[in-house]
């Protein structure tokens, strides 16, 4: 029987890791991720898992150890955040190029400076082109559920790519929330046994991994093959989300439309703010405003065609970005959304709202402001300001 519990987002993810029972975990603690590894290491110490827990001296070493362990044929997990993810950066590209199905939590926190340990999505954005699948989660339940699904997505033979599970630091990682845990046996069955494609330890079948392309000129073709695998993971993410729904009653897709069917005004958002946006939409609906939310779940790969279709009926859209892309036209989610909509026959006005940097709180009133701006644009058909900042003192 599923168990309803009161856990922080981090504890929920540690429980998922316990149930998955990976062969190797190599991780380095960093706020606000620390309690995941702290709790998981107690599971190791108590013998509740069979995991080889590798203590390392940095995140660079953590990801390097994960790469080695995964290439050796193990099921590997790790977790990180912010500066830690930044320190892993060069090794992230190796993990994805070698098509190693490593699963990692990235508890979203901004990058300093000035020093700030609070939530935004700048850290994940730095790794968005690293070839990792990136799935953003709204709450502790989704972070737990996605951890279990990520194993299946990463290890699917059509994919074989590392997966990054992103959820909001402190807001989700440290808040105690109500959620349902699956039975250990159900998770064990759902994730199944890991069957590595290669193993460096298999002396019967020797392999070389990631050899130097100095003279042959195959790198470009190889990288394109890798990109195709990333794009090819879209149906797998959807399939696994559906199958997980059959097991748990909680269904997941590439994105979540909320009251979008008849919406005229739509906000596109990732992470915990999606929940607050839904709350605001419920209130606006009570007042007769046709508002809706599109919550992006799979950010990499980006389901552009599906999202463009889901937004085809609305009159004005605000993409919400919890990160900055200094010098670009708006921030990443906006760029992605506006680009995805370019091929639609009708030109729907899209604006960007940059919000919540460094943990700046996003109360419902801020999102109401976004919707009233959208109402204005829908009415006039004109965009007064493309890039906007929410809750900024200016």
């Amino acid at each position, binding site marked *: 029987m599923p168990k309803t519990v009161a856990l922080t987002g981090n504890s929920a993810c540690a429980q998922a890791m316990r149930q998955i029972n990976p062969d190797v975990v190599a991780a380095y603690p960093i706020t606000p991720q620390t309690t995941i590894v702290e709790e998981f290491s107690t599971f190791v110490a108590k013998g509740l898992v069979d995991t080889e827990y590798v203590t390392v001296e940095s995140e660079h070493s953590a990801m390097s150890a994960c790469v080695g362990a995964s290439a050796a044929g193990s099921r590997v997990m790790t977790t990180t955040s912010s500066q830690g993810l930044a320190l892993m950066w060069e090794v992230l590209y190796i993990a994805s190029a070698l098509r190693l199905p490593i699963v990692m939590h990235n508890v979203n926190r901004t990058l300093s400076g000035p020093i700030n340990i609070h939530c935004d999505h700048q850290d994940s954005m730095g790794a968005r082109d690293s070839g990792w699948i990136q799935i953003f989660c709204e709450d502790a339940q989704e972070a737990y559920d996605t951890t279990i699904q990520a194993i299946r997505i990463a290890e699917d033979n059509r994919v074989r790519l590392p997966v990054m599970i992103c959820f909001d630091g402190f807001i989700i990682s440290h808040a105690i929330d109500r959620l349902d845990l699956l039975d250990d046996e159900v998770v064990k069955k759902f994730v199944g046994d890991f069957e590595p494609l290669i193993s460096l330890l298999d002396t019967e079948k020797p*392999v070389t991994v990631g050899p130097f392309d100095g003279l*042959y000129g195959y790198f470009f*073709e190889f990288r394109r093959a890798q990109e195709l695998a990333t794009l090819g993971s879209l149906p797998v993410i959807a399939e696994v989300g559906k199958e997980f729904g059959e097991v748990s009653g909680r269904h997941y897709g590439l994105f979540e439309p909320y009251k979008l069917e008849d919406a005229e005004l739509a906000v596109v958002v990732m992470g915990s703010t999606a929940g607050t946006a839904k709350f605001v939409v419920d209130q606006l609906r009570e007042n007769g405003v046709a508002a809706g939310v599109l919550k992006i779940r799979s950010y990499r790969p980006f389901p552009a065609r599906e999202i463009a279709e889901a937004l085809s009926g609305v009159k004005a859209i605000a993409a919400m970005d919890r990160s900055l892309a200094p010098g670009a036209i708006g921030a990443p989610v906006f760029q992605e959304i506006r680009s995805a909509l370019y091929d639609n026959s009708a030109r729907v006005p899209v604006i960007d709202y940059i919000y919540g940097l460094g943990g700046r709180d996003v109360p419902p009133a801020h999102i109401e402001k976004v919707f009233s701006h959208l109402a204005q644009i829908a009415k006039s058909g004109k965009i007064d300001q493309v890039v906007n900042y929410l809750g900024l003192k200016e």
Partner: protein
Amino acid sequence: MSWDIKSIKKWKVADHPVGSTIPVGGNALEYKTGGWRSEQPHWLEDRCTHCMICWIFCPDSSIQVKDGKMLGIDYDHCKGCGICATECPKDAIHMEEEEK
């Protein structure tokens, strides 16, 4: 998939094995590095005591040996570094200019 290094230059996107792997062992043999030489080692068999010091030191496994006896030098892979000639205690290997 079968691995044939000779055709890799022609490989298209779909031909690559998953994860940038070479799925067979021992294929370094197929990669001939002999063309890198500017000097060539010459083995003087009558001075050789088959002590195997050159075999130990050769970084490219290019000293050909069978049953504890040196047979000669693998010029397909020898890069002409001269370590064998330097280490040989009997002066049985001499470096000479590569004849192109």
